[in-house]
């Protein structure tokens, strides 16, 4: 039928235009290439960490010494991961951590050391091992520090250095610092030391309390600004507010960026935070609640509205049929 042919032509050109300006153009725009012009495919690897990305990056830079260093480091991590950790022994080692990770909300060398209450649940095991061995290497931000001991957590090297000790403390965290974790807890522990979320009234100091007096409110605001200044001095720029980030970046970007920030944004001062799959899901849930709270309502209402119009269209078709029946 002629009318259907015309419809097919219209649909074809509309879809072609859509494909060109959306999937194709966006792929071209965000494509990363190495120095030979070959595309670098950035894939998520399920929030596990074995240094593959870091080694590949070093290889692309053509820095042989760096490649060797990265390979040696992640091989070490693998060795520790194979050791059997003793949680009871780990508890003693963990006492070293609490010196800084104490919930006092005091900035130490750039950021407030995060709470570790759910560290065994939201972070990957390999990453935790890597972090204790060398925080700068684990975060893939070693280019920022001439010496790892300059990293805010750099002193860990002098307190926990024995491989068995590392295995023990990680085993302890996985056993005792795990359990049920809410999206808010996961987000606070993993992200809030740098990022604010104004839509949930969260700052680098955590939840903003309610104040009776304007004076107290302003005093808190000043404390927030002071903390932000410290973070800014350390990071080079104030990390962005994450209120709308879930709408501003695609799923693929979020996943791969959180797994390895350098891959998507070479040179960024954001370190890898080492979330595992569960940790990421919780963080994503929190950001969705902040920046896209209508997602659930949208998905629920959608079929009803579309169903209504399908029904409407069927009725309209029958009306048209009856109107045009005796015209030809």
């Amino acid at each position, binding site marked *: 039928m002629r009318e259907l042919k015309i419809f097919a032509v219209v649909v074809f*050109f509309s879809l072609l*235009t859509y494909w060109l300006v959306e999937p*194709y153009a966006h792929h071209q*725009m965000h494509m990363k290439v190495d120095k030979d012009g070959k595309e670098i495919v950035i894939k998520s690897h399920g929030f596990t960490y074995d240094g593959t990305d870091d080694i590949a990056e070093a290889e692309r830079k053509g820095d042989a010494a760096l490649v060797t260093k990265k390979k040696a480091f992640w091989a070490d991590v693998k060795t520790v991961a194979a050791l059997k950790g003793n949680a009871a022994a780990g508890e003693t080692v963990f006492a070293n951590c609490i010196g800084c990770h104490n919930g006092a909300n005091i900035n130490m060398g750039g950021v407030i050391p995060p709470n570790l209450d759910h560290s065994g649940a939201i972070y990957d095991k390999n990453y935790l091992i890597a972090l204790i061995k060398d925080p700068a290497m684990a975060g893939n931000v070693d280019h920022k520090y001439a010496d790892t001991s300059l990293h805010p957590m750099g002193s860990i090297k002098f307190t926990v250095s024995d491989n068995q000790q590392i295995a023990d403390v990680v085993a302890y965290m996985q056993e005792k610092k795990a359990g049920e974790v809410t999206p808010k807890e996961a987000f606070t522990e993993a992200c809030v030391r740098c990022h604010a979320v104004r839509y949930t009234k969260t700052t680098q100091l955590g939840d903003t309390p309610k104040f009776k007096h304007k004076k107290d409110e302003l005093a808190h605001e000043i404390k927030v600004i002071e903390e932000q200044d410290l973070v800014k001095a350390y990071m080079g720029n104030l990390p962005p507010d994450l209120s709308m980030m879930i709408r501003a970046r695609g799923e693929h970007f979020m996943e791969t960026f959180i797994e390895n920030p350098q891959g998507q944004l070479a040179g960024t001062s954001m370190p890898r935070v080492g979330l595992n799959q569960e940790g990421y899901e919780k963080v994503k849930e929190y950001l969705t609640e902040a920046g896209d709270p209508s997602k659930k309502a*949208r998905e629920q*209402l*959608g079929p009803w509205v*579309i169903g209504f119009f399908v029904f409407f269209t069927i009725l309209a078709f029958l*009306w048209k049929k009856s109107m045009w029946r005796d015209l030809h």
Partner: protein
Amino acid sequence: MAHFEKANSLNEWMDQRIGLNTLKRVLNTEYWIPKDINFLWAMGMVLAATFGILVISGIFLLMYYKPDTNLAFDSVNYTIMAEVGYGWLWRHIHGIGASLVFLIIYIHMFTGIYYGSYKRGRELIWLSGMGLFVAFSAEAFSGYMLPWGQMSYWAGMVITNLFSGGSLEAYGLVEWIRGDYVPGDAYLTRFFMLHVFLIPLVIIGLIVLHFGTLRLPHVNNQEGAEIDFEEAADLWKAGKRKESKVIPFSPVFLSKDVFVMGVYFILFFYLVFYNFNFAMDPVNFDPADGLKTPAHIYPEWYFLWSYEILRPFSKDVGLIAFGIAQAALFFLPFIDRSPNVAPAHKRGLFKYWFWALIVIMIALTALGKLPPTDPLFATLGLIFAVAFLFMGPILFVITMFEKKIEKGA
């Protein structure tokens, strides 16, 4: 004062005072539409419906939107999207509507070009329609500023910069338009006024004019046939519905319009609920920051073809080419010298010209978004931009030599 009888019904009462029955007859039951049409003839009513949806959703959004550079972003993304009941729905409808209205405008325009619906007698339909296209473009651009995201800010920066006129360096004019050296509060509030008041007023006026210009020449038909509307109308009124070449707007033509609208709304709401990023660019969910230029600045898809005519040339040549491209389509009825009102497939070379135009416009649209840093895309952009500029003169020449089609053959 004229003499008034006591009315026996509300209908009669209204009829006495504003001629309700005459209005119904003139606008509906005896407004004749040719019978030989396809679904593309429903695009006008689809556009009218989409405009209605944009107005209604716009009114709801207007109740909570705050035109202030400090508040705009959060009033849209927090107040409307998170706090107001169904605010997200109205915003998604408004965003999708703004994008789809251009898809339908383009289909409507290309339908007019394909069937020669701008030719002698119908020039004003085309001209008022082009006026609407320009007004809708201004409406879309001004509306895009309002969420005050990164793309709002930087697109505003780029487009207002065009008014510096290249080497004329008329920065005074640019500042006058912005009300500031860079887009700021004065800029946002004036574009807010344009978006919610002045341009909608112009659009409504132009829609009335557009409908008015249709009245005497009547709607075209699939074969471009000349119809004696009075004779055909008499046949219809005499009950000879098969023999008559026309149908009344209401209810016969309308029944088809409503069916097409139904199909359109299924697509519309599928996009509203499940696939909206093409109309609501993620980049614009980052708040405006004058110190952070996004890696890629591009307009919405419906402006890409004209953006790509600006981009591949040097500054001044680009601006001139861009100017020509904006105005060129207005002159279509006068460039086309052919005496024929007929669909493109019956018009010899014009058929190839039409499909070439479609290909060029789509190629320009794609290239307008693809990064010009890639030499292949840059070269293709230049080729298609030049090709577009040649389409006018080519049309003039090929239609001069177009053979007259004998009607009734």
